[in-house]
């Protein structure tokens, strides 16, 4: 039992808590959650007797330690019995560390002298053998006791909160968040990658389930965001670098050159009228329409200024043309304009970067990209849009023929382990909307092929009912294949949907003229990169991870960075808007406080022992480490440091130490877990069988 040549208990670290440790151990039953598997009384008695030599002066158990009565018990004993360190054996610190620390604080004890050890998640919930689970609980308590001996009194850092906020993503989620913040009177930087605000919602004609015109409800919000005195709108821009910490972020934004002087441009539109180059618009028109090389994505674009697409502009290709420049009345074209880097200070960040559409070519049996009359969901949105390439006429790829029968295919790339495991949440409702629009515009027969119909929100199932009444033909079955029709009269020249009608139990071949795929929603291609830039993480699928899936859905594990909308997972417009507002509310709460307390879990460098090797410099995930060239030593910014411990482990000179997770604390806790310290005093009867660990 030697490491670092150190036998026996470790020497105590200097502590502000005066005198010898007087430790109180409090074991929670958590109803039957813990007591059902762990003999709580035995753990209590064992701690009281076997750990007495380690400073335990009192051990108690209680049915619900987190209840007011449980907390009062701890507070009373701190006051009455002179307890100066507390170990609570209950649930995970994620849940109740704050509760018990606050209780200690109420009783006048520094809250960082309280340790919460988990005998629920790490013990009773994962074991069935009562005797072994009880022994394990004792070990966990012993670990907590050893650790708490090394705990020091700490004071949280207080940092000021900058009142401005960065909102990334100019779709409906980002617009909602930005407007809430701006209307509350605080400055917002709203950054959007595309030339205009609007996101996917701007591409839609109608929104489910009310079928209100998407542009009619979105445009006023875009205009408001574009002209709001508190909002600095940065379109055609991307965030390049984020430094700093909650309350004090410094963000570098690249404003891509529009090649247009915004102070002169009036948005008159003569430039794109005169531009001779037409290219397929894969972005806003989803590849179904054309735009010019100088363009605004759509007439209601905010801002109204066009951009020049340098990859397709003849001037950048051959050095001639300049038609736009020649005809521009205010002479606003600037071929020599360069990207600009802008640095702004903000206190909080809201990420509302949205989703991208699943590439249906990955499902070759559906023929997308090969069979002309197979359309993606976004293609159909543009096709049915009154401002789209066909003026809202639902026609085949030839641009003329109206379909007589249309098939709509659900779950394309969703709910399929070969592509995406998850349900894309919006596709059922979107497909019902498509069915309605097809019927309304063409009167065609509509077959809706679904696996399960999922309509669980306000007004959604009523919409499904409406579509049933409208005569949509529902076929329950995952479409097997879409192919060119055979030689028979009803199939010739058309498409055939091959599907098992699972409610009949037979394979069907349904001839149609057009197929609309309900593509899955996927994370943006660069979601992981963006998440990393902002110091947050993504799930296995690539969606940004919230702090808690139920109770903290818009915060992230990084203080001051919030997520809203489809960047966090597939969701519809109402939920996206709600999340944008929720994120704004969270930010406003912070701004109102003026300053905030940071957990004092920090690393610090002993400048004398630091050899200046710089090994730690690039390891810090929070960019908290800098190198002082004059003193030739590393420094850690305590406000940036999140206490992860990476640098502490990496330092070859042992010059970095951490609060709360100090070396002495961790090694002592391990000693405790292995009953090294207890064993020194306990009767030999105490033996813990932990697999793979020498007793």
């Amino acid at each position: 039992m030697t490491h670092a040549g150190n036998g026996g208990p470790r020497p105590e670290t200097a502590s502000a808590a005066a005198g010898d440790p007087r430790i109180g151990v409090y074991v929670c039953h958590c109803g039957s959650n813990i007591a059902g598997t762990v003999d709580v009384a035995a753990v209590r008695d064992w701690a009281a007797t076997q750990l007495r030599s380690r400073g335990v002066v009192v051990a108690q158990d209680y049915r619900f330690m987190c209840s007011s009565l449980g907390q009062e018990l701890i507070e009373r004993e701190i006051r009455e019995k002179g307890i100066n360190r507390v170990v609570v054996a209950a649930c995970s610190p994620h849940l109740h560390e704050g509760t018990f620390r606050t209780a200690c604080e109420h009783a006048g004890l520094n809250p960082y002298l309280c340790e919460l050890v988990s005998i629920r998640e790490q013990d009773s919930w994962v074991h069935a053998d009562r005797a072994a689970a009880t022994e394990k609980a004792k070990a966990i308590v012993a670990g907590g006791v050893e650790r708490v001996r090394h705990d020091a009194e700490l004071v949280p850092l207080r940092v000021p909160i900058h009142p401005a906020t960065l909102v990334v993503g100019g779709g409906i989620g980002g617009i909602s968040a930005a407007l809430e913040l701006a209307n509350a009177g605080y400055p917002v930087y709203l950054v959007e990658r595309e030339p205009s605000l609007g996101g996917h919602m701007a591409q839609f004609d109608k929104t489910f389930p009310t079928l209100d015109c998407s542009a009619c409800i979105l445009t006023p919000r875009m205009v408001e965001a574009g002209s709001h005195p508190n909002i600095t709108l940065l379109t055609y821009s991307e965030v390049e670098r984020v430094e700093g910490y909650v309350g004090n972020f410094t963000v570098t934004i690249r404003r891509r050159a529009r090649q247009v002087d915004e102070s002169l441009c009036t948005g008159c539109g003569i430039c794109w009228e005169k531009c001779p180059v037409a290219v397929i618009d894969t972005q806003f028109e989803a590849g179904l329409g054309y735009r010019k090389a100088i363009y605004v994505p759509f007439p209601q674009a905010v801002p109204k200024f066009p951009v020049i697409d340098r990859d397709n502009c003849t001037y950048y290709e051959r050095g001639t043309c300049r038609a736009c420049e020649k005809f521009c009345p205010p002479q606003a074209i600037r071929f020599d304009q360069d990207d600009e880097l802008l640095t702004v200070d903000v206190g909080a960040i809201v990420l509302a970067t949205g989703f991208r559409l699943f590439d249906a070519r990955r499902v070759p049996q559906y023929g997308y990209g090969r069979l002309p009359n197979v359309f993606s969901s976004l293609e159909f949105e543009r096709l049915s849009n009154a401002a789209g390439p066909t003026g809202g006429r639902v026609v085949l790829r030839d641009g003329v023929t109206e379909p007589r029968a249309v098939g709509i295919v659900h779950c394309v790339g969703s709910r399929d382990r070969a592509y995406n495991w998850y349900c894309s949440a919006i596709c059922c409702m979107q497909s019902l909307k498509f069915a309605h629009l097809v019927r309304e515009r063409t009167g065609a027969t509509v077959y809706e092929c679904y696996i399960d119909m999922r309509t669980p929100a306000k007004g959604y199932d009523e919409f499904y009912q409406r579509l049933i009444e409208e005569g949509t033909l529902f076929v329950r079955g995952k479409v097997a294949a879409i192919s060119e029709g055979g030689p028979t009269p009803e199939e010739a020249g058309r498409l055939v949907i091959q599907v098992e009608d699972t409610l009949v139990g037979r394979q069907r071949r349904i001839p149609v003229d057009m197929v609309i795929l309900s593509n899955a929603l996927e994370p943006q291609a660069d979601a992981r990169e963006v998440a990393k830039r902002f110091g947050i993480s993504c799930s296995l699928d690539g969606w940004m991870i919230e702090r808690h899936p139920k109770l903290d859905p818009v915060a992230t594990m990084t203080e001051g960075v919030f997520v809203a909308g489809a960047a966090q997972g597939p969701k519809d417009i109402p939920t996206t808007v709600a999340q944008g507002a929720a994120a704004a509310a969270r930010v406003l709460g912070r701004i109102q406080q003026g300053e905030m307390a940071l957990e004092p879990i920090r690393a610090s460098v002993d400048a004398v022992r630091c050899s200046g090797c710089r090994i730690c410099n690039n390891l810090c995930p929070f960019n908290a480490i800098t190198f002082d060239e004059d003193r030739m030593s590393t420094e850690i910014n305590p406000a940036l440091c999140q206490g992860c411990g990476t640098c502490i482990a990496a330092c070859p000179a042992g010059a970095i130490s951490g609060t709360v997770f100090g070396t002495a604390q961790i090694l002592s806790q391990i000693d405790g877990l292995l009953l090294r310290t207890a064993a020194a005093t306990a009767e030999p009867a105490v033996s813990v069988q932990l697999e793979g660990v020498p007793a």
Partner: protein
Amino acid sequence: MTQDQLAPPAVADPGRGFLAEVVARAGTAARLELCIQCGVCGGSCPSADEMDQTPRTLFAMIRAGMREHVLRSTTPWLCVSCYRCTVRCPQGVQVTDVMYALKAMAVAQHTYLNATAADFSRAFVWNVETFGRSFEAGLSARHYLRHYLTRLPAVAPMGIGMLRSRRLRLLPPRRIRGIADLRRILVCAKALEAAA
């Protein structure tokens, strides 16, 4: 007896009994339990029209414990092992392997309705166990005489053509040298499977 004449399945809770039995036969890697009844298998199957149940229906019947109906179904015998369903299944169910297991169970319990397919498999396997190689001429001759006498006039030109182009050998293949070892391997495998 056809499917329709079978007694309705027992209403008593079949539990996972029959499902567990099929899974044990097909191997857990077949992932049969994961079926979400989407029907992509039945939609993809080239012989679905001739089956009395689509594969998906059969899987629902397995869950419902409808042993007799399942083991008398024509579905597994019409499977052509094309694996179309298997690669399209969103849950990764190895449909083809489940069909093999159902065939084997039907053979073991003699519940299949038409002997042609099972008989062909048995004859094929007999050849393999005897020679270590397949013996097409012997297999075909035996099979057509037994099951397709009426088909002989139609199929005769093919047989003659195959013989003439020396694509069919009338003599059985030479036994592989390791035939004794192979038989020992198969005997041992059968014993292991029976024990499981």
